[in-house]
């Protein structure tokens, strides 16, 4: 009997605790999570009330589309675009063909929390997400030189990020050029629509691979400026045809391979071919001489 009373009172207090937690704590946790998420993932392309960047200004986005549609789009943007959805394709066109990247771990709950955050921020006179402050000082020749050094890794990124050359190339790097994993950046400034958009994007790059590299090692504002200066400079060049650099690389590789094969032949000159066959040859020679 007493056990049953004990268990009931435990049940009661647990219910109360859960109610309190879900009533107070969880929305707070969710909204704080949404703020952090927005800062890490969204501000590279979106503002709330600060005008369009790569993606549209999200102020009052809930008035432009149904919540259900927005949730679906946030979870799988490419899926919605490819389903032929008219509004999604209009958005893609307005973003010069850039489709929002999907985010691993995005759930309907998280999408809802993000939309709640955007709605709340939309009501404010001045949202905290009005846009990152970008320096407008004119680029100098030194900026371009420093930008190139940051690109190739000769000057390392302050916060430990990987240098651009690991995955990207630009026209005129020399040698075997830059990396081929990711797009050539010769005309990136044009693709991203100018200094402000590109600079903002670089402060919190949001494509999946860039984000996984730079979320914990962000590019400093003082590094963004010379990089963008460099990309403005490379705009005058034509995007590189990477095939020559690749062909040179392959040819050097083939040359090295032949060299190694020749070395193996020399090092193991006395391999087994010289045991039985040499004896037979010797015997034959002896026979001839006799």
């Amino acid at each position, binding site marked *: 009997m007493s056990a049953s009373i004990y268990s009931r009172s435990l049940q009661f207090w647990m219910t109360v605790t859960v109610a309190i937690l879900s009533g107070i704590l969880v929305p707070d946790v969710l909204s704080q999570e949404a703020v952090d998420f927005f800062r890490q993932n969204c501000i590279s392309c979106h503002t709330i009330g600060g005008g369009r960047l790569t993606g549209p200004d999200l102020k009052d986005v809930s008035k432009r589309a149904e919540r259900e549609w927005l949730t679906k789009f946030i*979870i*799988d943007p*490419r*899926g919605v675009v490819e389903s032929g959805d008219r509004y999604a394709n209009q958005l893609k066109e307005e973003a010069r063909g850039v489709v929002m*990247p*999907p985010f*691993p*771990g*995005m*759930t309907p709950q998280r999408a809802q929390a993000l939309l709640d955050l955007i709605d709340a921020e939309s009501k404010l006179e001045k949202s905290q997400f009005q846009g990152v402050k970008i320096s407008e000082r004119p680029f100098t020749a030194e900026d371009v030189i420093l930008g190139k050094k940051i690109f*190739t*890794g*000769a000057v*390392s990124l302050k916060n430990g990020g*990987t*240098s651009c*050359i*690991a*995955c990207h190339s630009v026209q005129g*790097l*020399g*040698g*075997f050029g*830059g*990396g*081929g*994993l990711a797009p050539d950046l010769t005309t990136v400034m044009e693709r991203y629509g100018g200094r402000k958009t590109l600079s903002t994007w670089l402060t919190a790059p949001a*494509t*999946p*691979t860039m*984000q*996984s*590299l730079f979320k914990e090692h962000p590019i400093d504002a003082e590094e963004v400026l010379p990089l963008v200066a460099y990309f403005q400079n490379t705009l005058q060049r034509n995007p590189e045809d990477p095939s020559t650099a*690749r062909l040179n*690389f*392959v040819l*050097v*590789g*083939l040359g*090295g*391979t032949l060299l*190694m*094969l020749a070395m*193996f032949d020399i090092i*193991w000159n*006395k*391999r*087994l*071919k010289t045991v039985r066959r040499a004896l037979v040859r010797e015997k034959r020679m002896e026979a001839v001489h006799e």
Partner: protein
Amino acid sequence: MISTGPFFLDQIFFIVFPYVAVIIFLLVSIRRYRTEAFTFSSLSSQFLENQHHFWGLVPFHFGIITVLAGHLIAFLIPREVLAWNSHPLRLYILEGSAFVAALLTMVGLVSIITRRLTDPKVKKVTSWADWIVFASFVIQILSGLYVAVFHSWGSSWFASLATPYLWSLVTLNPDIKFVTAMPWMVKLHIVSAWLMIAFAPFTRLVHILVVPNPYLWRKPQVVRWYAAWKSLRKV
């Protein structure tokens, strides 16, 4: 932990596959070592043919050991690899050497396969498991070569992307965000590596676990192995 949506397949390939592969590798290797210890070898066929063999065995092993060591180094000391690569010339030297090693592996592999197909005695002792090993090496090395040429510079981005992904698996906290947006050839290279690990304990690849290191510098010697290859005597 596995969710549906745009990342469903990625989760299967990059979370489920590696764990299943490693578990199979460990369990089957141990079981085979305890029950069929005498099959725990490379099952050398050098005794049956040793001229052509040299041009398969030597380039293949020097190539593959160098390439695997490269992957292992970038996994263990990524920061040092990136520091080395911070000058383009050094980056090109590292990438060039790795590429030569991969080509040597390919030369060795082609040579091994030709030998298995053309020499009647060697062909007789070649099992279906061997053919799967050869086929998976062809996929693995061709995709690796393709990545080296068309998705360069792997030595740098492996250290920045593949290393954190692999460590996330080791620490049982899998994080696939580093690999979800990779080109499909890179994904193929990774998935086929997991499949090879899973299949290795069923094949001659187990010799990796019992390799005598002096292989690399000792004088050549003849290796013989005995099995009930009755059919071989007729060749």
